């Protein structure tokens, strides 16, 4: 009998400790307030407090300051309001969270609002329409936004998202290095890619720096170059790669650039940002969200200036790459508050000037909201860019970007074009490499 008692006690203790241990882990998962921005893969949640909205976002140098600015602006109007930002380490974390929630048909782990990559959104609405709440009836003047930007968050005429940033492509040049080689910013504005290669070769020979670098694994370059020509990789919902003369020319240019040491393709994104931060390049071309990355090399302050892209024909090229918008998830119970908040801040409401001005100052986030873009802050020169008024320039360039056909399979194509570029560099003829990419993409686009 005694033995039984002892063993029962022991079992009890074991069970208790197990429960206590469980309880502990639960606690830490449910108390994200402590974790806040330090934890890079913080769990997402909503708050029970009726004045608190939660938003999941990434990029502490860029989007997070913009959201903080919006939270502050709205707080002035509604003192009780509280915006909790759940910082993620990368956009993929949010995409995966939505996929997982939607596949499990349980949205209770999503925050009220998510920041979402523009190129992914259409596909997520097609796949998981239940995961989102539209913002059609929010108090927003949609004509006040850039058309190209809205084309990502508007699906079948329904508005789902509020634009945050502006993906207008900039070509930033180190003017001091260009000067060494006898060129000015004007000499690289509105030029053909052939001319660009000519200049790039000289820059490499004189300074040892590449005029352009890119992430070779998820290559942004062909997409931007195509858009600058006003073209898309898609036509009527189908991928057009193999019989696309413009794309063929672009891939030939890319290969030539690699061979002549004008373009450096890195293995991944880290390698790409490393090139910029280790001062290995004389030029950077990407969505303007790349500016904070450029600015991290403080000793090169005043040596950069921005302009438009080269094109095949030699006209000035305009494109847009990346960028994201804010979306209300199905898990948001305070939809009215969320809409009010978004309309007041990012949506061109009374708080929008304050929001966008601070977002620009703290994070370099440039708006696509036309009225907010006329604020004085946008006209100021930026010391890092040789006192050029780059923000006004970017807003101006953004107005020239052509709307091109988008697809759910944007990243599938991007990945396969990157593979084609690698194959071409390893000796496969351009036509064969593109044919292969076409087949792979067609295959992926089947059901």
């Amino acid at each position, binding site marked *: *009998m005694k033995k039984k008692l002892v063993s029962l006690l022991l079992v009890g203790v074991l069970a208790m400790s197990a429960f206590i241990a469980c309880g502990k882990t639960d606690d830490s998962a449910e108390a994200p307030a402590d974790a806040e921005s330090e934890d890079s893969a913080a769990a997402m949640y909503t708050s029970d407090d009726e004045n608190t909205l939660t938003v999941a976002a990434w990029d502490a140098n860029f989007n997070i300051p913009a959201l903080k600015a919006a939270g502050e602006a709205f707080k002035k109007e509604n003192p009780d309001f509280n915006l909790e930002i759940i910082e993620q380490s990368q956009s993929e974390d949010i*995409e*995966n969270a939505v*996929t997982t929630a*939607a*596949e499990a048909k349980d949205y209770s782990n999503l925050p009220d609002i998510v920041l979402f990559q523009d190129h*992914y959104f259409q*596909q*997520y609405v*097609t*796949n*998981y*329409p*239940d995961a989102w709440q539209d913002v059609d009836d929010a108090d927003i003047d949609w004509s006040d936004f850039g058309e190209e930007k809205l084309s990502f968050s508007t699906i079948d005429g329904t508005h789902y998202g509020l634009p945050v940033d502006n993906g207008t492509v900039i070509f930033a040049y180190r003017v001091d290095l260009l000067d060494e080689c006898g060129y000015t910013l004007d000499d690289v504005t509105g030029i053909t890619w052939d001319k660009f290669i000519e200049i790039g070769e000289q820059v490499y020979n004189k300074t040892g720096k590449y005029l352009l670098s890119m992430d*070779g*694994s998820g290559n942004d370059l062909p997409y931007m170059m195509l858009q600058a020509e006003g073209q898309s990789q898609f036509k009527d919902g189908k991928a057009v790669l193999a019989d696309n003369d413009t794309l063929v020319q672009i891939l030939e240019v890319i290969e030539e650039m690699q061979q002549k040491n004008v373009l450096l*393709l*890195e*293995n*991944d994104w880290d*390698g790409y940002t*490393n090139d910029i931060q*280790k001062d290995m390049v004389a030029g950077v071309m990407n969505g303007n969200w790349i500016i904070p990355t450029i600015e991290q090399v403080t000793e090169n302050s005043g040596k950069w200036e921005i302009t438009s892209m080269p094109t095949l024909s030699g006209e000035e090229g305009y494109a847009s790459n990346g960028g994201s918008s804010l979306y209300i998830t199905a898990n948001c119970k305070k939809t009215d508050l969320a809409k009010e908040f978004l309309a007041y801040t990012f949506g061109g409401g009374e708080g929008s000037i304050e929001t966008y001005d601070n977002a620009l100052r703290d994070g370099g986030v440039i708006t696509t909201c036309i009225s907010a873009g006329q604020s004085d802050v946008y006209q100021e020169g930026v010391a890092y860019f040789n006192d050029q008024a780059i923000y006004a320039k970017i807003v101006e360039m953004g107005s020239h970007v052509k709307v091109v056909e988008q697809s*759910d*399979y944007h*990243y*599938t194509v991007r*990945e396969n074009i*990157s*593979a*084609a570029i*690698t*194959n071409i560099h*390893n000796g496969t003829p351009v036509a064969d490499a593109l044919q292969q990419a076409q*087949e*792979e993409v067609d*295959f*992926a686009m*089947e*059901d």
Partner: protein
Amino acid sequence: MSKQRNGLNIQGKQQRAGWVFLAPAAIMIAIFSFYPIIQAFITSFTTGTGVNQKVADPLIYNYTRMFTDKTFLRSVGNTFLYLAIEVPVMLVLAILLAQLLNNKDLKFRGLFRTMVFLPCATALVSYALIFKSLFAQDGLINTIFVNLGILENNYNFLGNTASARVIIIIALIWRWTGYNMVFYLAGLQNIEYSVYEAAKIDGANGWKTFWKITVPLLMPTIVMTVIMSINGTLQLFDESMNLTQGGPAFSTITMSHYIYNVAFGRGVGKFGYASAMSFFIFILVAILSAISMKVGDTRD
């Protein structure tokens, strides 16, 4: 105290106790492993994404589709390449190291054993990232090779198919050799020293002792490590994902990585197709394990 309190005899009681002890684990496995497996199997007969997911027509569409999928076939090829090179090299190294470190006269045995085993204590992602920075274009290896004059210019190890594959294999060997060595060490310690003494008296040399005594007596352990290694390699994911992202041009992608890409990676969300490919791996693991068990079976 009555012995028949619950109307059960001793055997019945013991059986009941057995079930009670088994139940928690069994229920957990059923809920968290078997149920998802069945669900995945059902999912594998659907096509389309998200709300548009519907039953495939014909039912085995996904299972036939994968054999026309060039990227998938490439990933199968890559995985088998890793398997064919990495597993034998790793296991031979592990058995040799175990043999060395089992030597009773060796000083600092504990230290060496710990050192060989230590890589297993590192997380998969962190060690992949360390290898990535080691072999980066401006990484340590390149710097050393250039300074020693072995290489003229920095070489893009992870950007070229052959070298990227070699690095993945080296990384795998580094990570898993110690792990397997521990099993061999445990196995070696179970072999009676008297058996070796008897062999010595009979005049067997080290080579013969190894092949005639160590290997046969270690056979159960060897079979186990082979199965575990095959299983692990076929499910290889972290290295491909973190070291090379499957590139350049999909030339190092593994099956699991491709499955992840189809389900999550590019936001495509084809869970039906991904599940079907997972079952293909499942079948492969079953076949290869069955073969190694058969080969390693020492009973006549």
